[in-house]
């Protein structure tokens, strides 16, 4: 049977609202009479709050109230409740919100915020992971032992270690001792980076007079937000109504719990009037969480033939002042440290460490940009030392579906994808051994690759549900709980419904494109980890089946045939044995009504739900079964390096992913191309820079550069491999997060291969690369200079 919609290029269903700018985001939500909130933030990285004087602020015309931490004695968090609503007793980073001013105009709120006076008693700040781990380091969270911790996590009270995860598989020490083992040892680092969602975090909250709390907020996961907030401030879950309009970018920033408790409590404090908080870009990059900083100390053993036999890695994630979500990033980086490879001996320790810097949270890739930066660079280092081709060393070590066992003890499923095919498609497209001449004699051309594998990191019970409602005219309304942030999942879900019922796509309305509300939409755990299409997709297929069964039941009575003889497709219910007995599904939408008014059946509403089967928490050795699907992928780049200046220009990009089934290739390609751009930013440009006192010194989009239009590569190729996932919706797997993971390592590997220069830390700015070449291969620069300053001139004179 040929598909009508699945596999076809279908634009996002809300495209026309987007091109006209009329899609309403939380940022655009406003009611007459709404009050404005403004944050007052800490000027010290670590200090006791001695006194807060709000008297001058309250004199500003229009200021209504000023709230401080003491007003809201609640602890917030998803995996670890280490966050306060506003700073209580002490501040933990420069930018830590200390107070909030509420006023009847933005101007008054801003003026009031300037006039709040806070007296501090400075404490010794802890600004590096190294210092944080010293025995005599000041404690950033003295009460770490009292925080609520999610199962499977292990904070170490009395230290600055928010979590330690350990993974043991085989015996690395023994393997390193073996005769013909070549050892690679490196320390790799990644800086903190910002998600830079174009829509900054913003919340409109109204604590209603009936003690229900309504929120309009720019988030990914309305149900997680609702539960975590209810849990933190002691309200029944359904007293909180979270409305999640489409988000102007999520990328992990807007998962879990954000500013909702603060703004809701502010609303209550000012006599239950609606209050809105919008973060400016500077506030977003100083007071709200970013991606962790990362250090990996790695020791890897390879046999002479390239077999990867032992991997020992210590990961340190600089979590900043709050590690709430980052403890799971650290755990995930840890348990998936062996990537796409079959390594018999693995020992990983992954620490999430507090420092007095901007807090951190989930970001696209969730631990995988981190651990693959270490792993994929190490593979190319080994390839170079052993004299083996980078493609070949990977080919020899890739996991074998149906055979291999991961370091967690989880068997690699037969149907989980084809890593060898990913590698060969990538190699064929890139032709890594064929390198063109550079455009100038003082430049070099280079090609590099990186592979990756990733599964959603989620609790064992991360469930999804879906509802399908058949309307009077045969149109269908679909409800799931998945947030919409441009990832395309809602459109793909609509495509599945159209395909399964055989009705035109235009007849399917997917309500989450405009709003997901916790009081109308069915539950899904979170919109994270590339789990949406998979988990919600399975729930949706079950809801479709349920709705079809209801139609079949009524139809069998109307057709006077057994239920087993009724089929629903092409918009009809029909008898399989007597296909001419058929009626449009709309005839059954509200039950079937005979001409005399007699009605059989009732309104059709299908429900379906899904939860992972037999997943567990990981045990003390990091063993267990905690994934539902893996997606393999690879990135290849061709680039040119100017040896005189260190500038890198990526000319060509290749993305390859085994996504099981491309339900909507237009949107999948959008993810692959866009993820490459985001990966490119993290590889070449992006880094939050810190002053000596730990403050972020580049919280804007000039000094923190994200890729612009002119950064697009001249060539961008995306390949979709479709090895079906048996339990995936129509065979599909997720891919939204994977697409940025391989970019930075592919670039670093290209540089290594072409110049022999090792870069262990991102971003690869022109100056950093120039300095690295100068230190490691000065002869390359000397030769380039000779060509440029002398021989290059001859060409000019010939003009």
């Amino acid at each position, binding site marked *: 049977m040929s598909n009508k919609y699945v596999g076809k290029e279908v634009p996002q269903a809300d495209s026309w609202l987007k091109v006209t700018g009329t899609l309403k985001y939380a940022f655009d939500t406003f009611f007459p009479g709404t009050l404005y909130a403004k944050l007052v933030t800490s000027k010290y990285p670590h200090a006791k709050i001695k006194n807060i004087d709000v008297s001058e602020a309250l004199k500003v015309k229009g200021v209504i109230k000023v709230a401080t931490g003491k007003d809201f004695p609640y602890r917030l968090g998803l995996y670890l409740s280490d966050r306060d609503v506003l700073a209580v007793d002490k501040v933990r980073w420069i930018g830590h919100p200390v107070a909030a001013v509420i006023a009847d105009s933005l101007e008054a709120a801003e003026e009031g915020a300037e006039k709040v006076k806070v007296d501090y008693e400075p404490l010794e700040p802890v600004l590096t992971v190294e210092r944080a781990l010293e025995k005599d380091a000041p404690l950033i969270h003295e009460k770490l032992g009292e925080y609520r911790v999610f199962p499977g996590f292990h904070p170490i009270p009395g230290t600055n270690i928010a979590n330690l995860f350990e993974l043991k598989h085989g015996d690395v020490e023994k393997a390193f001792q073996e005769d013909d083992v070549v050892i690679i040892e490196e320390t790799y680092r990644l800086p903190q980076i910002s998600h830079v969602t174009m829509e900054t975090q913003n919340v409109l909250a109204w604590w209603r007079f009936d003690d229900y709390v309504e929120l309009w907020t720019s988030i990914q996961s309305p149900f997680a937000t609702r539960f975590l907030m209810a849990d933190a401030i002691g309200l029944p879950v359904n007293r909180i109504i979270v409305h999640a309009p489409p988000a102007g970018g999520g990328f992990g920033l807007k998962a879990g719990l954000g500013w909702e408790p603060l703004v809701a409590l502010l609303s209550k404090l000012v006599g239950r009037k609606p209050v809105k908080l919008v973060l*400016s870009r500077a506030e977003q990059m100083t007071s709200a969480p970013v991606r962790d900083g990362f250090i990996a100390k790695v020791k890897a053993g390879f046999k002479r033939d390239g077999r990867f036999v032992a991997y020992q890695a210590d990961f340190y994630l600089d979590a900043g002042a709050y590690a709430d979500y980052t403890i799971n990033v650290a755990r995930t980086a840890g348990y998936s440290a062996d990537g796409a490879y079959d390594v018999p001996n693995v020992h990983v320790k992954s620490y999430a460490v507090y420092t007095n810097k901007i807090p951190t949270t989930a970001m696209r890739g969730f631990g995988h940009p981190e651990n693959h930066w270490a792993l994929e660079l190490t593979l190319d280092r080994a390839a170079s030392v052993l004299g083996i081709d980078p493609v070949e060393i990977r080919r020899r070590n890739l996991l074998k579906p149906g055979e291999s066992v991961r370091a967690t003890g989880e068997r690699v499923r037969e149907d989980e994808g084809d890593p060898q095919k990913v590698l060969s498609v990538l190699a064929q497209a890139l032709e890594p051994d064929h390198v063109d001449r550079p455009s100038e004699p003082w430049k070099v051309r280079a090609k590099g690759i990186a592979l990756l594998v990733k599964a959603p990191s989620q609790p064992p019970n991360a469930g999804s549900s879906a509802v399908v409602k058949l309307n009077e005219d045969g149109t269908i309304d679909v409800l799931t709980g998945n947030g919409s942030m441009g990832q395309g999942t809602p459109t793909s879900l609509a495509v599945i419904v159209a395909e399964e019922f055989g009705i035109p796509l235009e007849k399917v309305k997917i309500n989450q494109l405009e709003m997901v509300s916790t009081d109308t939409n069915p539950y899904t755990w979170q919109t994270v980890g590339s789990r949406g299409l998979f988990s919600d997709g399975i729930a949706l297929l079950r809801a479709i089946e349920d709705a079809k069964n209801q139609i079949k039941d009524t139809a069998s009575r109307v057709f006077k045939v057994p239920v087993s003889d009724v089929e629903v497709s092409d918009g009809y219910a029909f008898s399989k044995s007597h296909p001419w007995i058929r009626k449009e599904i709309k005839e059954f939408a509200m039950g079937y009504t005979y001409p005399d008014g007699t009605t059989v059946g009732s309104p059709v509403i299908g429900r379906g739900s899904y939860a992972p089967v037999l997943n567990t928490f990981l045990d003390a050795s990091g063993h267990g079964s905690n994934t539902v699907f893996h997606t393999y992928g690879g990135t290849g780049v061709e680039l040119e390096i100017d040896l005189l200046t260190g500038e890198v220009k990526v000319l060509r990009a290749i993305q390859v992913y085994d996504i099981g089934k491309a339900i909507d290739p237009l949107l999948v390609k959008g993810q692959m191309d866009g993820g490459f751009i985001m990966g490119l930013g993290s590889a070449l440009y992006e880094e939050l820079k810190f002053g000596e006192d730990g403050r972020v010194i580049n919280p804007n989009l000039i*000094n923190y*550069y994200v890729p612009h239009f002119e950064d697009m590569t001249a060539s961008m190729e995306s390949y979709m491999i479709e090895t079906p996932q048996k339990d995936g919706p129509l065979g599909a797997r997720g891919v939204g997060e994977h697409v940025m993971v391989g970019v930075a390592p592919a670039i670093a590997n290209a540089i290594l291969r072409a110049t022999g220069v090792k870069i262990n830390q991102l971003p690869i700015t022109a100056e950093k690369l120039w300095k690295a070449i100068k230190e490691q291969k000065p002869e390359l620069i000397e030769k380039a200079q000779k060509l440029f*300053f002398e021989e290059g001139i001859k060409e*000019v004179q010939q003009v």
Partner: protein
Amino acid sequence: MSFTTPYFTLPKFTYFKPKKLEDALSLLRQYKGKAKVMAGGIMLVNLMKERQIFPEYVIDIKGIDELKKISKTENGIKIGSAVTAIELQNSLIVRDNLPALAKAASYMGDRTLQHTVTIGGNISVGMPSTDGLPALMSMDSLLRIKSQDGERTIPASELVIGLGRTSLKDDEMITEIIVPYSSGLKGTYLKLINASEVAIATVAVSALLKERKLSVVIGAIAPRPYYFDHKSLQWKWEASLSENLKNASEIIGSNVKPMSDAVASSEYRKEVSKVLAVRALKEVFGGA
């Protein structure tokens, strides 16, 4: 410099949009010290959003026609200070005769902002990374500065007196830029940025060649641009270009003392200065 903007609104001020230059100068005198001139307004609006400055009066000069003119005579080219970066790039007078300035204008913020940014505003900011000044200095440009008391004319090289500081008095404004050449210039403007075009320059180089006059200006590496001419570069017109370039790059390398900051180190800036200077010189001689 904090470079943050936690504020969405501007502090309060009174706005004027005079149509005549004398009215603008009169307002500047009347509110001396409390007023700011606004042309493109990019830096002004950002500094106000950052609450770094609180002008009580803002005098918008975009309505003054005489500040928006570009004219050419035998003695040179005159450019009004409120001419925008886009107008510079689109002006045939500038494109044909002052290629370095046209190219520098293409780097003044992103393309959208270039509709707003003005040449006078760009150089009045006084920051090292401004693009207009190296180009104007390489062409020995003069700046006409007016106040209600009268006017003075200074070489562009004397505008900036320190990091972000200019020699403009509170009641003065640049009204016109005078380039003392009207044709026959070979010139270019090159810029290395730590990322892409909208980011801050690591090094910017402008070069000019007119007959036997040569100048190279290096901006963005120190509070004030470095100026070299054929004399300080010990240029030998009879010698080969190759020999001259090698020599010039060494002289530049040993004479610039670049700053180190969050954008780049001194060492790197020095190296890139040499590379860009040679690139620029190759370009002006290559096209000769």
